[in-house]
């Protein structure tokens, strides 16, 4: 069935099209103006030539790129390991915090104490404590500084992720548990098959967002000594009194984050659509 819009509808369409064209023109103009002002302002600044030399030197950039890339590979590996471990730890802690009954009081108290203290502790301090404090005990079989640093990052992020998972678990309506239990499922089975799958789906966007933050924070391991991208850049800076390697590392971190950020946005959008579709 074909439908010819009425004159009133045609007027409406024409009006909306006119408004849309105007908005696009306005946006383009303002972008151009802001861009010009920024470019003129920065390149016209009195110290621009000095800054250009010591932050954006192409030769230094090319010279240190291979080392920084080598370091970045360590960051990627750390990200994968720390993200996996922190999510597992977070999920475990979140589930422990939901356990009811006096028998589980110590477990619950321990889990709560953990999320409170490690969300408050600055990551840098945790890394120092783990990487320098633990070897200081001179115990046999103390792992490598790299492993200790990774453990510090995992433990800190686990506390954040535990709260994200807990929010997800609490967002699942109690009637879902009632329905599962009424079918004869035990508490564990209800959690495993009914509550957690829904909870994880709901908190996927904030979970991925925390992973983006983690992606940057794995760079803090350089404080403990391992040569990651930031450490490699730092060495380059020290050798040349030129900050260009930092800028190179910064650009690489952004490039590394882009796919993860894109995935996060996509998942968030999809979750919002699902929510709006109603149930």
């Amino acid at each position, binding site marked *: 069935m074909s439908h010819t819009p009425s004159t009133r509808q045609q007027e409406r369409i024409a009006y909306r099209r006119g408004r849309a064209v105007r908005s696009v023109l306005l946006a383009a103009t303002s972008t151009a103006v802001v861009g010009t002002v920024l470019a003129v302002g920065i390149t016209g600044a009195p110290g621009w030539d000095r800054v250009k030399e010591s932050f954006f030197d192409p030769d230094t950039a090319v010279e240190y790129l291979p080392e920084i890339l080598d370091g970045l590979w360590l960051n990627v590996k750390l990200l994968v390991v720390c993200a996996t471990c922190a999510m597992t730890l977070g999920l475990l802690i979140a589930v422990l915090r939901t356990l009811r009954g006096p028998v589980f009081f110590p477990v619950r108290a321990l889990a709560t104490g953990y999320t409170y203290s490690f969300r408050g502790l600055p990551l840098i301090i945790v890394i120092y404590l783990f990487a320098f404090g633990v070897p200081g005990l001179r115990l046999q079989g103390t792992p490598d500084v790299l492993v200790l640093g990774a453990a510090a990052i995992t433990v800190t992020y686990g506390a954040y992720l535990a709260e994200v998972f807990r929010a997800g678990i609490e967002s699942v309506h109690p*009637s*879902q548990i*009632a*329905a*599962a*239990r*009424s*079918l*004869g*499922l*035990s508490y564990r*089975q209800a959690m495993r*098959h*009914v509550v957690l*799958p*829904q909870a994880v*789906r709901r908190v996927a966007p904030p979970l991925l967002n925390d992973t983006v933050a983690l992606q940057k924070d794995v760079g803090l391991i350089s404080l403990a000594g391992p040569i990651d991208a930031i450490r490699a850049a730092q060495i380059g800076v020290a050798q040349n009194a030129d900050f260009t390697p930092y800028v190179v590392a910064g650009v690489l971190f952004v490039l590394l984050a882009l796919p993860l950020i894109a995935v996060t946005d996509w998942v968030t959008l999809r979750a919002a659509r699902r929510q709006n*579709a*109603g*149930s």
Partner: protein
Amino acid sequence: MLLEIDKVRKVFGDHVILDGLDLSVAEHEVVALIGASGSGKSTLLRCVNLLTEVDDGTIHLDGEEITDPRADPDLIRRRIGLVFQSYNLFPHMTVLDNITLAPVRVHRRSSGDAKAQAMQWLDRVGLAEKAGAYPDRLSGGQQQRVAIVRALVNNPRLLLLDEVTSALDPELVGEVLTMIRELKNDGMTMVLATHEMGFAKQVADRVAFLDGGRVLEQGPPEQVLGDPVEPRTRQFLARIIEAGRL
């Protein structure tokens, strides 16, 4: 008696919901619970399914006391099906997975076996083509019928229905009621809390009017709904008739 409820008491805060309620249900019998909102119909069903703990009194199922604190609630619930007013299907699972979850995880049946049985039921209630759909793609009436099937595949001794048509649009009520009528013909023992007096009249062997936390009056539907003895029952029915629901 299949189900024997004896002097059950339930208190929320200082609000007495059930005040020494007695009710017994024979095998193959269908009992309709009627009464005003807040008269304890839902609470009673939740007590029988052990989702809510009783504060006094006992409940026996097949002669076994299920309110005994040493009894395993998971084992008892396997013998009792409960269908909720708000369906409570699992939104992250397909219709088929909703139905086979308990048979596979609780009753340890093989996935193929459980699926075959589920499909048989879906076929019978005319929802076979919805097996792979997610609950949010179904109408309220279809969701509620799936919820009933989900309870039935566990082969319960007793089916509890808690206002199963209250959340439905009027034109969808019929399909659910038809299904319950068929279950009665199969000989399923049911206790149903309902606002549908006309339906209670048709399907119930006995109607029990709950008031003040007790069964104030019970008997055949024609008697309780047609010629009640108690003034409170008369008052309640007068309000229902006024609302055009009888």
